[in-house]
Structures are given as C-alpha cells and as structure tokens.
C-alpha cells in the first residue's frame, strides 16, 4: 500500500542503474533492483538530492503544469522569495510580480510580506516558549519530514507556527472570494516552488491537515516564459521598488535570513542535509540546550539552492545577501507593524492547525526479542562483508546491505564479493553440468569448427 505521497517519480525507461541516486540519498531510501532504481517510500523525505544527481534525468519532480490554471475562475501566483533571487540585481520583486501577471495569472502576491509577518510571529513564539530547546524552524518541509522519520523524539522542537505560503494562500482565498463573489475553491492559489518537496507539503501536509494551496509550479518551468514576459515591463525607479521590499521576508530565501533580520542572538542557521544530521545528532545528545532557535534548510544555502531553481546558488544567495545589506543600510523595512502582528498572533492567525506525528521507520521486528536477534544477525553479516560500500549489490552501503538481507529484501549472494565463494561451493555441480550439457551444445552451434576439425 502506498501510504505516503511523494513528489519524486523514477522513469524506469530512462534509468540505467548508475547508482548515483542511491549513493547520494541521505536516508538510504533508494535501492537498485534488476538494474533500475527503486524507492523505499517510507524512508523518502523528498529532499530531491536524487533529482539533481541523476545523469539521465530519470528522476522526475512532480509539479503542476501551467495548464492547471484554467480550472479556476481567478488565479493567484504566490512565488517563493527564492524566485526574486533568480534574476539580475536590477530586477526587483515588483517587476517580477508584474511579469507573472503578464504570464496569465490574475494576480501575483508578494509572499515576502507574509514571511515578514511570520518572522515577527516566530519572535513572539520564542519569547513565550517554555518547552524543550532549541526550537526548529518548519520552513523547509524536508527538514520536518527528516525529523518525523529519523528524529521522532525531536518533533516537539518544531515550531507550531504555520508556514507563510499556507497563511498567504488561506488569506488570499478569503479575501478574493469576498471581493469577486466567488467560492474559495474557485480561487486557484499556486505556489512557485524552488524544490519538489513543497509539492508534497501541498498534496500531503506533514501535519495531516489540508493545504490552502491548489498547486505548485516549478521555478525552473516558469523561468523562461517569465523572463520574456518581463521584457516589456517598465523599469521604474529603483529606489521606489526597494521601498516595497519587506526586509524580514526577503531573508526567507536564504539560510540565516530569519535569524539575521530578527537579530536573534542564540540561534543557528544550518543548510545541507549532512550538516543538519550533525546538528540534530547534537540536539539528541542534549548538547545544544542553550540555543533558542535553529533555522535549517535541506538545500545548500537555503531555498535559493533548491533543485528546481535556475541561477547558480551562490549567485542567487549573493543577490539576496546584497539586497538585505542595501535595505539595512537604507533603513527600509516595508514590513507589517509588529503590534498588528501581535494582535493577529493572539487570535491564533499564525497557529498551525494539524498536529505533527512522528513517522519512525519500521523496526527490524515487532517483537523486541526477535529484533535483538536480527540485529545480531545483521552485525554478523556485516563482519563478513568487504566494507567498501561499492554499491554493486544494489544497496548503498555494506551496512544497509546487511540490514536488507536480515529484512529479507536482499540475498547474501547479491554481494559480488561473496560470488567467488559461492562459485567455489557450486563448482563440483558446475563442472558436472558442464560435462553433461556444454559439449553437445558446441557440437550443434559450432558447425564451421566441426568442418575444420573434420
């Protein structure tokens, strides 16, 4: 049964089993079986690393095509602030939003504004919070899923403030339906996403609620058309365009942006899954108790490094960074008033509705005694393996291979290092077989040889 919806599909026709995806997967969710990559659904956290690394383009992110727009009476584009980082320095958000409208959306909403509100809400949340520390940001759905799967005991550390994209979509639907006399479901809200995982957070929110967004369109799909659409847009005054940017919100595009613009003292900003694993291990050990807040993104440098973005991630990171510096220097804020946010906060405007549940991996066996027996078996098997993690067996490491064997999902003989041994064991049988069957076959097919011999 397929319990989890994933944003990643493997095209088995294009896949030629090159192992790259299997090696890069941070949760060991990919195996190569019969020369093709396959996914272990319960282990996948939709980080998208495999998409980036596949040389054949055989792993496909599932996002919505443009055509979905026609299903709605009124459509609104809600771009991730990472979209603003995809174009040159002179192209500021207002021009990009105008471009989106020219592309066919009825409206384009500046999500950075909501991000800014949520930043203030996070600040409020932190100041009132009394539970286990550090708190962890939920902006990155991969991080949330990583915690559900691999660090279930850290679930209570995730902040229960809803994400800006969900809050924005909810409010847009409310406002627009009133304004146009339409039903909320007739208003289409589309998130322009830098990564595939946001797609799943729409189809299957981690907290099991229902998303207010109707779809996600990849930034890489919309980039080309948007670039052409912006060609005719008047440039206008740079200073004026700057004055529309919410500094707190624009920071959400890059790692560290929230902490920096809120000036959080005891906070960490981490990006890249391997780094996140290290930090989460430290939290589990109880080592980071004096840190208040952790901003963590699975993509390097934050959302600007998403696998569905176009611009080199260091360039786009730099664009946001320089923009922040300019806004700081010119003392431009353009964010919602903090007191207004406080009032909304009291009304639970920012509260996450559903509850996050852990999604721990299946243990080796349900019964503890049996599980202990199996882990011993696994260790014994591991000791016999070459420990070079070649991947030829179809499992990413020798250790996962040992686990797969114990779980009955792989055979010991799948390890090519076991093959010589196996052949030796079989050799008496084999030579017998050879004697019996091989010579007549040669006689049948080797007619020419036969003639020469004769």
């Amino acid at each position, binding site marked *: 049964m397929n319990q989890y919806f994933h944003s990643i599909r493997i095209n088995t026709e294009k896949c030629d089993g090159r192992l790259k995806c299997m090696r890069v997967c941070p949760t060991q969710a990919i195996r190569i079986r019969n020369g093709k990559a396959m996914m272990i659904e319960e282990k996948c956290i939709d980080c998208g690393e495999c998409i980036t690394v596949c040389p054949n383009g055989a792993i496909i992110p599932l996002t919505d095509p443009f055509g979905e727009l026609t299903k709605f009476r009124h459509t609104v584009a809600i771009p991730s602030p990472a979209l603003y980082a995809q174009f040159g320095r002179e192209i500021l958000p207002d021009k990009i939003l105008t471009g989106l409208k020219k592309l066919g959306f009825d409206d384009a909403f500046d999500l950075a504004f909501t991000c800014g509100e949520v930043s203030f809400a996070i600040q409020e949340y932190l100041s009132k919070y009394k539970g286990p520390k550090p708190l962890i940001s939920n902006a990155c759905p991969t991080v949330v899923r990583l915690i559900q799967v691999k660090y*279930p*005991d850290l679930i209570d550390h995730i902040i229960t403030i809803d994400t800006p994209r969900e809050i924005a979509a909810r409010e847009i639907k409310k406002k627009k339906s009133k304004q146009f006399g339409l039903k909320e479901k007739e208003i289409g809200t589309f998130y322009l996403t830098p990564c595939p995982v946001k797609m799943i957070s729409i189809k299957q929110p981690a907290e099991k609620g229902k998303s207010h967004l109707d779809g996600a369109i990849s930034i890489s799909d919309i980039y080309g058309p948007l670039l052409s659409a912006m060609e005719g847009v008047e440039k206008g005054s740079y200073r004026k365009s700057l004055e529309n940017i919410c500094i707190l919100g624009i920071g959400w595009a890059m790692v560290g942006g929230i902490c920096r613009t809120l000036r959080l003292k005891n906070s960490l900003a981490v990006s890249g899954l391997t780094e996140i694993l290290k930090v989460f*291990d430290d939290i*589990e*050990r*109880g*080592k980071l108790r*004096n840190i208040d807040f952790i901003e963590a993104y699975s993509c390097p440098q934050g959302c600007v490094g998403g696998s569905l973005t176009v611009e080199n991630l260091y360039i786009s990171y730099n664009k946001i960074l320089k923009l922040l510096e300019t806004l700081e220097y010119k003392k431009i804020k353009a964010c919602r008033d903090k007191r207004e946010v406080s009032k909304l906060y009291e009304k639970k405007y920012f509260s996450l509705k559903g509850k996050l549940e*852990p999604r*721990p*991996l*299946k*243990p*080796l*066996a*349900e*019964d*503890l*005694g049996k*599980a*202990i*027996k*199996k*882990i*011993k078996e696994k*260790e014994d098997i591991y000791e016999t393996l070459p420990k070079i993690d070649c991947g030829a067996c179809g499992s990413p490491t020798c250790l996962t291979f040992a*686990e797969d064997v114990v779980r009955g999902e792989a055979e010991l003989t799948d390890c090519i290092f076991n093959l010589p041994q196996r052949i030796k064991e079989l050799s008496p049988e084999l030579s017998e077989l050879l004697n019996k069957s091989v010579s007549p076959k040669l006689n049948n097919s080797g007619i020419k040889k036969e003639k020469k011999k004769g």
Partner: protein
Amino acid sequence: MGNENKLSKNFEIEGRDFSKAGTASTKIKEILKEIGIDSSVVRRAAIAAYEAEMNVVMYANKGKLTLIITPEQIHLKLEDKGQGIKDIKLAMQEGFSTATDEMREMGFGAGMGLPNIKRNSDKFEISSTPGQGTSLNIIFYLNHKGKK
C-alpha cells in the same frame, strides 16, 4: 532466557580524542532506534551514553562502553582507566564540575555529566578508585511497569 535474545556490544573510547567524541553514543542510538525502542527511552539513553562517553574523553586515559540489550532492559556499562573520582558525593552534585575553562568554552562540563546520567536513567550505580578509574552501570527498563 537464552543468549540469543541478548545483544552485547563494546565501544572503545580514547581519552582526549575530541574529534571522535560522540561516535559511540551515536552508534548506540542508531541500534536502539533500529530495534524499535520507544523514542523517549532512546532519547534518555542517548543523552546518558553521550555524557558517559564525554566523561571518558575529558577525564580518563581510555575506557570501554558496553551496550547490553535484552527484551527487559538496556544496560550501559562503562569502565575507564584514569584519574578516577575522589569524592563521588561531590561529583554527583548538580553544577559541580572539574572541567577546565577550555572544555567549558567548548560547551562541555557544565556540571551536568553524572547527575544528568542519573536523572535520565532508571537505575544508576557508580564506583571509583582514585588513580585507577571509574565504573558506571546505567540501566533503562523496557517493560511498561518500569519507572518514568
């Protein structure tokens, strides 16, 4: 109860080797997760194992941490060779620490170690011979009637 339901695994810990500090407790945590131990128990055991490991790294020459799991309990057994503890009563006081300033700078030795292990475990035993070493027995019960 036969031996087949019992897992026993040794981890060697080198004193002063901060670069590898934490590897034993991380492995222990992985094993506990894999066999499906309740996550709140994993958390407590991980913290205790880490503190125990760090005590060896910070104060001893070397040590051996043994993980023994049966369906009834998790037993962490630590034996180290080193300076030992002169006054166990004092060492068990919250906030007491002999960590150097350098260690504290790194976030270690806030006087959390031993009391923290005790707080997180269901049963805790300590014995030490000054100049020779320390041994700890840390136990977590797995049946539902267990403490905590």
